[in-house]
Every structure is written in structure tokens, then in C-alpha cells.
């Protein structure tokens, strides 16, 4: 099955004082008090509920939204829930200036598009504005946003759904 390589969605700029927030760790994304939850459908409601100023994210976000964050997104523990909670909400992609190494591994293995931002001019974007991004060549519909395209591995896994369906 050929998957859509052009994503089209409304953005959430995860900011504080008009700057993208850096070092959002896995406890801010999905706090360890919820770690006993194993049903992915239950995970979405807790996404970002430990991130200052973003408690209501889970309620306000909509299926197909795209997250934009700062540097070192997803640092901390190896918990898979920190990726799965966004899949649970139907988040379409996460764009960040950089990612924690294990977080990146987990997201790629789950087939959630995560992409590194090469350049962004934040002032030119409005919250909830629509953008279009191309996973294969990294192009976007805005001259104020540049992203790294998918690596071949990421593309392979994404097209199959996840690591396991890829391995079949």
C-alpha cells in the first residue's frame, strides 16, 4: 500500500514566550504516573499534560495536526508511550529542531513521521495555520520552513506501517 508522502495539517507551535520550547522530556510528554497504561487508546488524553502551559493540548488538538517543537524533543527515558500518545491522538507528524536519540528510534519504529527542522522563521507562522510538507524531499509550502527529508530507513518503515510489518 502506497502511503501519502505529502502531509497537510494544522500546526501546533509548542512555544513559551514566543520561542519553541527546548528539552521537552518524556516525563513532560507522558508522565511516569501513567506508565501502567498499556492500551494505546487510553494514552492520548495525557499527552503533554505535564508540560507547563500545555495541559489542555490533548483536548484541543485534532486528528491530523502537526506538532512543531524546539531542540532535544523527547529526551529522557525510553518509554514507548511518549510516542504512542501522539499516535493515539492522531497527530500526523512531529517537527522539531532536534530529537532525543531513543525517542527518534521509537518514533521511526512506530511509523510516526518525525522530521528535523533545518530552518524556521517562527514569526511568520500563526498557531493552527495549515501547512503542507513533503516527507520525501523535505519541501514545504512555506519559504520560512525547511525540513530534513526522511532517511531511506524511515521511509521504508513508514510505508510498511511499523517496524514489524516492515520486517514481514
Amino acid at each position, binding site marked *: 500500500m502506497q502511503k501519502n508522502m505529502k502531509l497537510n495539517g494544522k500546526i501546533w507551535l509548542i512555544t513559551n514566550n514566543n520561542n519553541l520550547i527546548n528539552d521537552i522530556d518524556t516525563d513532560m510528554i507522558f508522565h511516569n504516573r501513567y506508565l501502567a497504561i498499556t492500551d494505546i487508546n487510553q494514552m492520548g488524553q495525557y499527552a503533554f499534560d505535564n508540560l507547563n502551559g500545555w495541559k489542555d493540548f490533548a483536548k484541543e488538538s485534532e486528528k491530523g495536526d502537526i506538532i512543531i517543537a524546539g531542540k532535544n524533543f523527547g529526551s529522557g527515558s*525510553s518509554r*514507548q508511550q511518549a510516542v504512542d500518545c501522539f499516535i493515539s491522538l492522531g497527530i500526523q507528524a512531529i517537527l522539531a529542531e532536534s530529537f532525543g*536519540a531513543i525517542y*527518534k*528510534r*521509537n518514533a*521511526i*519504529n512506530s511509523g510516526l513521521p518525525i522530521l528535523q527542522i533545518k530552518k524556521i522563521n517562527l514569526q511568520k507562522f500563526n498557531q493552527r495555520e495549515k501547512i503542507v510538507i513533503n516527507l520525501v524531499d523535505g519541501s514545504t509550502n512555506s519559504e520560512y520552513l525547511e525540513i530534513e527529508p526522511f*532517511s*531511506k*530507513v*524511515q521511509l521504508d*518503515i513508514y510505508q510498511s506501517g511499523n*517496524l*514489524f*510489518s516492515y*520486517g*514481514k
Partner: protein
Amino acid sequence: MGKTIVEKIIQSHSDEKVKAGKIVWMKLDIRTARDFGGPNVVKNLEKYYPDERLPDVENILFTFDCVVPAKTIPYANNQQICREFAKKQGIRVFDVDAGIGTHILMEKGFARPGRILVGTDSHFNILGAVGAFGQGMGDQDIAFTFCTGKTWFEVPETIKINLKGRFTFPTTGKDLVLFVLRKLGSKGALGKCIEYYGECLQDLSFAEYITLCSMMTEMGGIVAFPYPNENVTNWLIKRTGENPEFIFADRDAKYCNEIEIDVTDLQPQIACPPKPDNVKEVSRLKCLKVNSVFVGSCTNGRFEDMLQVSEILKGNKVAQGVMLRIVPATKEVYGQMLKEGLIQVLYDAGAIISNPGCGGCASGQIGMTGKREVQISTANRNFLGKQGDGDTYLASPVTAAFAALKGKL
């Protein structure tokens, strides 16, 4: 442009062009799971690949080392899940008597220069001691490798560390790695490799190479490659029956950072609770009262480590009230201790000696510490609660033995 050691190893296992920063697929030589993580690997395999016969099973292993033999029913059940699955698939199991998985891979010649090995153990990078690329991974990742024999990896950058000067007894390889950790800190090698060079490497035993590589995890690193010496070469010839073909970095390899660390007359080092990088000179903690001492773990559980301890304890008794716990890394080490009389010496000194495995490190196989108990451990982590409620200090077997003898540092 030249390549670093890790770039070369990955390149020889990949069809894509390998360069630091790139994500590539790489083939794996050996895939393993231990009793932690192993049962989940089995569950993932049964869920996603039911009734599948795994390919290439002679290169898949189970190694039980964390809680051996199982001390609770859940652990016992988990190990049995692995055994039954292994039997069905024809996978070899190094069972609860064998010892620490990574050490077995080196003893039995599975780990060789240039090979790539993975397992559900965050200290898999220890295999850098023989020039192999070992990597610990989560249970989903490992289940996938069992089935496909490959994984994807972001090719890491490498830091080049030049060690300047030499040091002598009582300073050992453990003090060296603690000192490097002190300099670099817990994020000092985050996501990166280290290549070690320098004269002082010539003086290290193979056991000290293991020690040096094992604490890469505590620096956040991927794997370390110390430039091989004669002891490493001899070990490999004995274990594999062939002359080792080490992978060396190109002269014009690109490093992300080059650091010189002066180790001239380095003094014994100790990591104070609650973090492995909280390192000081042992002499600065003089007179710290010690309640218990643990010698063992993947970092310092080799015969050479045990020999140092028994030489210090020979003909003496551990201080009144001090509990000395000894856990050899593997059955082979245990056997050699028996044959060469170390067990007798340690027994006479008053030590508790247990069967091989991770011992005090993983889940209290040989006891935990209580509140306010001060423990000197030769392992690699001293996070709060990891080995009980007490305070754990990380040091060399030599420092640990003297502490046991005197009841203080």
C-alpha cells in the same frame, strides 16, 4: 574522506554509503536476549510473527544473567518462557549457571573484531574491548532483529581521546574510566563513540579493557574502542583460534572532538552517590566507614579482578562487621578461581562467594543494602535505590579489597 572505526564496521555490514549522522540498515552477526527483556522479545515475536521459524538460529542466543537462578516466581516463569521458545526454535541457551551474557560472548569467541552484536542489555558496548560493535536495544528492536537479522542505525560520530602519561598500581583501569567519566560527565559522549589512544593502554590487562569499555553507558555513549594491545590480541587468539583482524581508523578519519586527558600518576578514583560521574580521589574520602563491599559485575567480575582482591586479603580477615560479597562474572572465572585457590583464600578471609552472574548489580541476587548502609561496589551504577536504600560508592577491586580489610577507605 577517511573513516572512524565505527563507520568502517557499519560499512562492512551495509549496502548503503556509511557516514556519521546518516541512518542506514546494517546486517547483524549475533542477536541475543537475556532474562530481562527476553520474555518480551518472545511475546513480540509471538504476536507479530506467529508460527514463524526464525532464520539463522545458530547466530541467536539467550543468556540468563540478571536473576540467576530465578529468585521469585515471575522471574522463573519468564525464564521458562524463553527456554520453551528457544527449544521450539532451536536456539542455544546459556542458562542460569553460565554467567554474564556479554562475557560469555567474548569467552566463547562470538564477539570478534569488526562484528556487530546486539542484545537486551544496555552494557552491550562492553564488546568494544575486543573491537566488536555491541549495542543494547529495547525488546521490540531485538524481536525484529531475531526475525530479520538486521537493524537500522544512525551512524554515530566519534570522539578521539588521547591519554597522556602512565600510571601504576594501586591505580587500575577502573580508576582510569572513572577519571574519564569525571572529565566528560554523564552526557559527555551522548550518542557518540570514543576511540582511545595512548601509551598507558599497553599496561592494561584484558580485564581492564572490559572495565574501560563497560562504563561507556554511564557517559551516554554508543561504544568505545581502545587501541588494542598485546593482551587483547592474545586473548582473541586463544578464544577464536585465529589471528585477530582489528579494524583501525583511517589516518584522515573525521572526529567530532579530540581530547587529551593527562593520566600521569593518576590516583585511585571513586564515584560517590548518587551518580556515576560524581567522581573524586579516594584519598579525599579517607576514613569513610564501610559496611559492605561488592566485587563483581560486568565491569569488574573477571579473574584478574578477583586475583587482585585475594592478593590483598590473603592471610587476613575482613574487618569486623564488614560483609564482603564476591560474584564471578562467569562460570569459567569461577572455575579458575577454584583451581587456583582463590576461593579458599577468599573463604578464609570471610567472604560470601556466590554463583556467577550480575550479582548485586541487577536485582539483588546477592543481597541489597539497607538505609544508611555504606557499600563499596566494583559495578558501574550507583543510582539511588539501584542496589538498595544504602549509599553505593563505585571503585576498583583494589580499593574495594582495602576497604573490606580496614572497614573504611
